[in-house]
């Protein structure tokens, strides 16, 4: 039953992987600089690592916005957010998973009579504006640096492109890591307060309860990437952002940096140490940041090729997504509570100490599943890498032989 409640989060994770991985590797795959297979494997691995290692920050902030205290509530919120995303995608409206989940949490707060913390909400909303703005700024700075490097180095176009190709893979991996670190809060954040699992000690690493949840979410995102992101990546790369390979690298790097900044507690502590205000740990929308980055490059290049219609649609999405998700969550919670009699949460009076919710689980069987799952992932990972390595080797050998035969016959 516990696993069933997680399915809505996993569904949200799957749709996030299917849609948002394109923001990271779309330009590289669409422009055929990197094959989809390579991009999908790298992105999947990096997303899982990012989610497990650095996923806590964003979840804490979402927890402050609304600490969902019943697993039925978490399930409903996730489902409402996922369905909002799905619905808006069906109508070709630009949509952000982050905004959907925030809207859904506010919907839960309204339904259960909990207060929405205005400080946390404003912190989140500010990042929806500052994220794309920061992305644009980073993109401009990085673009200037890259162009200066290209001019000064006098590198051969083909060699430069080979550097860009390697750069796209490294930056893409960093982008996927940041995506996992930042956006896992959208997928699993609402489950964190209601799930307590036993820690898993694997000798080299040990996974806390939250990290196990993030691992689950990370796997769901990875499955979304592997199963459904190909078409989206190819579309992003060819239709929406017609960028040169170096612009594509700059855009992905700028986006990854922004997402990393908004999920790195280490960097935030460093800011505090040197007397600066802390960086808010907030899940941000990768799509909106990437639009900010592309806009930045567009402005730098002369602002003639900016699609203002697309910008208008994005602004509309900004307003519509949280509202739709909030309403959806409110009505879903109503149905879940009154028709299916599921406990979706209760109101916490201000000043009271939050007690452990009734649906918190310490189930050992789930921990055992997690342990086997981890082992399975490691083995499957090795097998997949070995399979593709030998497949690639075979392909290269056949290609070399056919080349040799061709030139021999030509002579």
């Amino acid at each position, binding site marked *: 039953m516990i696993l069933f409640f997680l399915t809505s989060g996993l569904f949200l994770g799957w749709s996030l992987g299917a849609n948002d991985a394109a923001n990271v590797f779309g330009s590289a795959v669409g*422009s*055929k*600089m990197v*094959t989809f297979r390579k991009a999908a494997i790298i992105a999947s691995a990096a997303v899982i690592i990012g989610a497990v290692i650095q996923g806590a920050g964003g979840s804490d902030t979402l927890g402050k916005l609304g600490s969902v205290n019943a697993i039925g509530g978490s399930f409903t919120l996730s489902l409402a957010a996922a369905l909002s995303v799905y619905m808006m995608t069906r109508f070709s409206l630009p949509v952000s998973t982050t905004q959907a989940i925030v809207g859904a949490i506010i919907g839960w707060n309204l339904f259960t009579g909990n207060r929405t913390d205005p400080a946390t909400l404003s912190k989140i909303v500010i990042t929806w504006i500052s994220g794309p703005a920061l992305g644009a700024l980073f993109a401009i700075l990085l673009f200037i640096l890259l162009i200066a490097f290209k*001019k000064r180095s*006098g*590198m*051969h*176009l*083909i*060699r430069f*492109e*080979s550097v860009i*190709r*390697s750069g796209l893979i490294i930056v893409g991996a960093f982008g996927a890591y940041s995506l996992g670190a930042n956006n896992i809060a959208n997928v699993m954040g609402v489950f964190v307060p209601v799930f307590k699992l036993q820690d898993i000690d694997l000798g080299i690493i040990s996974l806390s309860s939250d990290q196990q949840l993030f691992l689950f979410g990370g796997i769901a995102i990875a499955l979304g990437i592997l199963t459904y992101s190909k078409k989206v990546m190819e579309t992003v790369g060819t239709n929406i952002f017609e960028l*040169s*390979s170096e612009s594509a690298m700059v855009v992905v790097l700028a986006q990854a940096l922004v997402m990393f900044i908004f999920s790195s507690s280490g960097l935030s502590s460093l800011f505090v140490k040197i007397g600066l205000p802390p960086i808010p740990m907030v899940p941000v929308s990768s799509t909106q940041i990437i639009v900010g980055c592309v806009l930045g490059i567009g402005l730098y*290049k002369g602002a003639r090729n900016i699609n203002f219609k697309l910008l208008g649609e994005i602004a509309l999405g900004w307003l519509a997504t949280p509202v739709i998700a909030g309403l959806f969550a409110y009505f879903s919670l109503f149905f879940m509570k009154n028709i299916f009699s599921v406990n979706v949460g209760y109101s916490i009076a201000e000043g009271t100490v939050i007690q452990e919710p009734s649906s918190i689980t310490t189930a050992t069987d789930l921990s055992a599943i997690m342990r086997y799952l981890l082992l399975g992932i490691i083995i499957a990972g090795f097998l997949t890498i070995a399979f593709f390595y030998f497949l690639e080797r075979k392909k*290269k050998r056949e*290609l070399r032989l056919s*080349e040799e035969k061709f*030139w021999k016959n*030509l002579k």
Partner: protein
Amino acid sequence: MALFTRTTKNLILKIDEFFDNIELGLLVFREAIKAYLEKDMAAFARHLQKVDALEGNADNLQMSIENEMITHSILPQHREEVSKLLEELDEIIDSIKRSLYELNIELPYIPSSLNKDLISLTETSANAGEELIPAARAYFKAPYTVREKLLKVYYFEKETDKIGHDTKKRVFQEIKDIDLAQKAHLRYIIHHIENISDQAQKAADLLAGMAIKIVM
């Protein structure tokens, strides 16, 4: 990654070798025309053989470069244009080969009074082609400088047209000791020599567009 580095290096070497072939072809073309005008048929045959080899090698290199770019997905965004540029450049050496073969087969009679004009025409036409090669090389290393390099190509192409026009005028209006058939034959040969610079201009037009696109 190691394989990719090796492929990159090989491809750069092949592109450079391809350009070298075109450049050498243009040099040999000048020498071959001079040899023909001086009636040194042994030297002409040697130059013809050299052009033949260079053209064959350029064809192989062109094919191999295009093949490697597709197989290893190199320059996916500029591949088509680079292939087209190689094709246009290859057309220059093809024209050289065709012109020299036609001289070799048809053995047109060229009055010695026309030697100076034809040498000047050949030099200017070949210059247009030769100035194109540094511009094409610059596309890969310093695309910002391509357009300024192309100015010389356009200049020599115009000069070639002028010299060609004057030479044809001389053939038909001033030279009296050859008949009309020979004059028509000479006009045909002049067209062949002019064709090298026309071909260079065609490639320059393509290259100018490519340079803007890559710098943007």
